[in-house]
């Protein structure tokens, strides 16, 4: 049974008397299975937060529907939300209360005692700063506090919207480690982010949306899988190498990145390409198999500029 399942979920904002309606989420359907670390990707304004908002009950869908833990009626969804820990966009807390007091309020609603509040403060490394008022916290501390609040109540599903936003590399790494720890504990993680390298390192599955429409849902491996990709370097200029690779019948794409020529082959035989180029007097100094990064796959799927250009 999927933990989250949407069916043609739609949100249309009325433009008022004279304005035009805005279709923020356009009939998207996807599912998240138990135990997955699910990345929800999309450019800014693509409808990620609106979609999550609908799942969390703060935005009313205008079409379609969804199931949480198999339930779809209002009562079932309200009950299912008790099994979710979530934070949306920015960490939202009472600025005049301390980190601990903010968590105490959340803890009471989730039926958790002071001991568990202390435990999650320890987990996110805020125990020593628990008396700091929220308004005096750094962005990193706020993000950790939001993570602590989502962990309260031992939820089965954790929804995080841009959890590494504004964090330095060490902070991002810490968040990544916490997410992996939660996943190891059997939690399902639903993670929205635009930091693609973070998602690639963290997630097992992704869904990509653009302009409110779902473009693709698959495992990270499937998304980045696209035949064989090889990086090439030769003692000729880049343009000549690109042109020569472009003539190779087995090449489906070619481009240059930072002085390297990247070729995409339809079969798994880079040696054939090597022979082809040698036959044209181009001797390679470097040839190595490479994998498409999630960022490259994302840009390709969303029509970004770094996608492979067709050569045939």
């Amino acid at each position, binding site marked *: 049974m999927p933990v989250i399942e949407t069916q043609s979920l739609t949100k249309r904002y009325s433009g008022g008397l004279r304005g035009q309606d805005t279709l923020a989420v356009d009939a998207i359907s996807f599912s998240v299975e138990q135990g997955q670390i699910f990345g929800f990707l999309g450019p800014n304004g693509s409808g990620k937060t609106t979609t999550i908002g609908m799942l969390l009950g*703060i935005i009313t869908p205008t079409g379609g529907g969804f199931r949480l833990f198999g339930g779809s009626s209002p009562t079932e969804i309200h009950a299912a939300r008790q099994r979710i820990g979530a*934070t*949306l966009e920015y960490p939202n*807390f*009472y*600025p005049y209360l301390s980190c601990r007091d903010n968590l105490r309020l959340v803890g*009471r609603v989730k039926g958790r005692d002071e001991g568990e509040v202390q435990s999650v403060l320890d987990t996110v490394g805020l125990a020593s700063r628990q008396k700091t008022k929220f308004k005096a916290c750094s962005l990193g501390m706020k993000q950790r506090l939001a993570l602590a609040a989502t962990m309260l109540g031992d939820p089965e599903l954790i929804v995080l919207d841009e959890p590494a936003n504004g964090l330095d590399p060490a902070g991002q790494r810490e968040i990544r480690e916490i997410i992996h720890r939660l996943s190891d504990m059997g939690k399902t993680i639903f993670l929205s982010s635009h930091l693609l390298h973070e998602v690639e390192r963290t997630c097992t599955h992704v869904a990509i949306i653009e302009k409110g429409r779902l473009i693709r849902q698959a495992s990270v491996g499937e998304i980045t899988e696209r035949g064989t990709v090889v990086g090439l370097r030769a003692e000729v200029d880049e343009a000549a190498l690109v042109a020569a690779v472009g003539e190779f019948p087995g090449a489906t794409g070619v481009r240059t990145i930072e002085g390297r020529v990247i070729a995409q082959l339809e079969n798994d035989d880079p040696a054939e390409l090597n022979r082809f180029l040698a036959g044209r007097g181009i001797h390679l100094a470097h040839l190595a198999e490479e994998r498409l990064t999630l960022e490259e796959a994302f840009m390709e799927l969303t029509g970004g500029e770094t996608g492979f250009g067709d050569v045939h």
Partner: protein
Amino acid sequence: MTGAAPALTGKIWWILFRNEWFKARKRLAFLLPLGFYVFIAFGNYFSSYREAARDPERSFALPGAWREVLGDDMSTFFLIFASVCLVMLVSSEFTWRTARQNVIDGVSKTQWFVGKAMLVPLLAVLFIGLNIVIGATFAALGTDGATGPMIPVGVWRAVGALFLAYCSLGGLALFISLAVRGAGGAMAVWFLWIGIIEQLIIPQTLGRIDAVQPLLQYQPFVLAQTLLGFEKWDPATFQRLVDAAREAGEEIPLAPDMTTGVLVTAGWAVALLVGAFIIFRRRDL
């Protein structure tokens, strides 16, 4: 801790009440108006006590002092200060986006609304209670051996009327807070309503229509003020006023009919709370 989540059981109401009180008592924007109100009450009753102590002609003692403790001045202060507190406590939940986070944390929108609506009786009890405690304490210090019950039945009636008046104005404050969704804007609209719209704009526009003119007295703030005044609720005090007027050869006051005022105020309270709920439910967070 195990068992059903509080949001799925009746325990949630007690938890929401505790959370609202916890947030309020740590909030400067709540403590300042409350402190100012207490300061005014303290100053007012201390002054009455001192004047009574100096001047044998004056008296500030129970039960006669109820007329001042539950009189127009402190009651009007209460309606305004408690409404300001309510606007501050509710509307800033939208500025900080904590309203949406509360729902994300598992509270339903209905539960969230009821949690805020619970602030109306909470603030009423707090403000009225503080006023009575401070006023009655000074009045008790100066008890002059008067006969009759120290807490006549009129006290309960006047407190009930004050509570009802605040349910109506608190409902208005809640409605504006949920419609405007920002502390500064909501505060401005609330003051604009009680100070300008009801007092000037409506009388100068709709009030010019003959059929509407008699209805102006039923506007929420105008009507709430007609419920204030201890003598309207205590027959003995009213009789003393009549006797005094007769002795002085002045016009004898007519016994007020409070029934319509009470019913319409209750109607406003219900309508404004229901309206606030509908406007909150219909909009995304």
